[in-house]
Each structure stands twice: as structure tokens, then as C-alpha cells.
């Protein structure tokens, strides 16, 4: 599918989604509550069939968090970027995608470790890189600790 066709599909699927085409791929911004049903459709529908989640990360924009999912279909060879906006920065949470793409398990562990996003229905949510007793989430913009020297 071309970018235009994917855009049409996403508009039909979720009228509230907004688009950003400045990057290499089509960026679709959706509210975080809609994530799971949208992702299930993208994974399972015959003409979309995004079977490969090749990047999962998060961005801290200070007033909100943005989850970023890069999806690719190996059969149709098309790529899309889904961004889910999390407005609650105090207690951020979003649905886990482990049930759709098992590879999300460790990626979501990493996002939880560094950004503190809580993934609902995740099989084993834990700190991946930092020690279990680490306080805070280091990649958040408001993170600070006593070792850190600000420039």
C-alpha cells in the first residue's frame, strides 16, 4: 500500500487520528485509549497485515508522553508509524501489545525502566537495565539525582 492508501485506511478506521508526513514513513497520532483495537486491526486485516513491530519507544514532551510504534508488513512491504499520546504524565499507563507482537515484551520493559510508563496486561513488567531499587525514570525530562552534574 502507498502512503496515501494507508492514510485513507487509517481515517476510515479511526476518524480522530491525525497525520504527520514530514518523516520517511506515515506518522499516525492516535489517543492512547484506542491503541489496542487499532493495533489488532493493523495486525490481522488481510490487506494491512503488519506482522513486524520493529521499533517501540517513547518520547517525553514534558506536558505529555508519546509512545512510538514502528510497524512493517513483510508480505506487503509497507511501513507505518503509530504514535499514541499519553496525557497523564504523573501516572502514565497504556495497554501492552504483548498479545499482538510478543517482541513488545522486552521493548516495553525498557520503556517502563527509563520512562516509567506502566503497561497494562504485560506478562512481566520489570526494570530491564537499571537495578531493581533505582528511584525515578532517567530519560524523563524532569529526572534528577545527586550524582548528575547539569551542564
Amino acid at each position, binding site marked *: 500500500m502507498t502512503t496515501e492508501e494507508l492514510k485513507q485506511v487509517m481515517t476510515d478506521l479511526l476518524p480522530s487520528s491525525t497525520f504527520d508526513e514530514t518523516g520517511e514513513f506515515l506518522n499516525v497520532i492516535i489517543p492512547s485509549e484506542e491503541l489496542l483495537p487499532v493495533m489488532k486491526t493493523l495486525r490481522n486485516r488481510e490487506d494491512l497485515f503488519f506482522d513486524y513491530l520493529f521499533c517501540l519507544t517513547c518520547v517525553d514532551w514534558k506536558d505529555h508522553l508519546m509512545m512510538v510504534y514502528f510497524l512493517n508488513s513483510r508480505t506487503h512491504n509497507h511501513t507505518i508509524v503509530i504514535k499514541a499520546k499519553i496525557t497523564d504524565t504523573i501516572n502514565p499507563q497504556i495497554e501492552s501489545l504483548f498479545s499482538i507482537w510478543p517482541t513488545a515484551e522486552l521493548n516495553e520493559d525498557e520503556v517502563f525502566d527509563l520512562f516509567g510508563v506502566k503497561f497494562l496486561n504485560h506478562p512481566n513488567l520489570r526494570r530491564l537495565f*537499571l*537495578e531493581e531499587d533505582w528511584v525515578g525514570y532517567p530519560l524523563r525530562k524532569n529526572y534528577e539525582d545527586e*550524582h*548528575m*552534574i*547539569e*551542564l
Partner: protein
Amino acid sequence: MDVKDKMEFPGQVHETPDGGFILSKLDDIINWARSNSLWPLAFGTSCCAIEMMQTVNAKYDWSRFGFEVMRATPRQADLIIVSGTITMKMAPVLKRLYDQMPDPKYVIAMGACTISGGPFFYNTYSVVKGIDHIIPVDVFIPGCPPRPEALLHSMITLQEKIKHETYFKKETK
């Protein structure tokens, strides 16, 4: 310091018609032997380790200076070359490796990261700002990473330090 001075035997050789004898101090003999047989621990945490491997290999060949084999266990090592960034998570491991080495043991801090945290000094949550917060360091060698010649220089400097240690000489007060 010239490399060819390094192998000079510490003492006088007195030739006699049927052989000869050597006059020297026990401390000097032991230190001469010890400093020319330092076994480093195979320990590398970042890009400095690549430069260290280069120093081991044929082109620079640190065996020429008496460093010989790298040991894979701290229990057989005399020297630990901390080559690369030490993170907060690696720090306890480094401390444990150092504690497992038998005395006398020596530490070379190789590269900017081990001296001060280097490029990771500011705005980082995970990097130890200098390994002298964790273990005592004998020789610091700056660079990012240091060239193999610089590493060899630091190791020869360490040998000089070892040659001035005393075991049997009583301390004068």
C-alpha cells in the same frame, strides 16, 4: 626513558677466571623479576578495550615489555587495565574483580572515561565519574582512547613504580 635501559640488571656482575658472581639487593632482584612478568586481567568495557587488544597483538606486542599473557581470571592476574566506561551497574563487578586479585595488585585507568567519566561527565545518570571512586589507581593514562604507544608508556611507568617498592629494606624513621 629508553626501552633498552629497561632490561638492565639491577646489580653488578663481577667476572672471575672460572665464572663470576653477582652483587645486588634482594629487593631489587625481586622487583626486577616482578615488574617484567606482569599478567594483566582480560577486562574491557568499551572502545578503549579495542585499543588494548591492538596493543596485545603483533604490531605493538606488549609481551616485548614483559606483560605476557592476559589472564581470564582475576585470581591469576597482577594488573587490571580498566579500559572503558564504568557504569553504576558495572562498578560493583569491578570492585569484586579487584578484591579477588591476589596482592600485590596494580590498576591502570585507561582513557578519559575511567579518569573522570570523560564525555559522560555531564547530564548522565549511569556513568561513574572516575574509577578512583571505587578502586585505588596506580597510573592514569589520558586519551579517548589512548594510542597503543600511550598504553605501553603507562605500563612501563607502572614497572618503574614497582621497581621502587621495598619488601626487605627496613623503613628509616
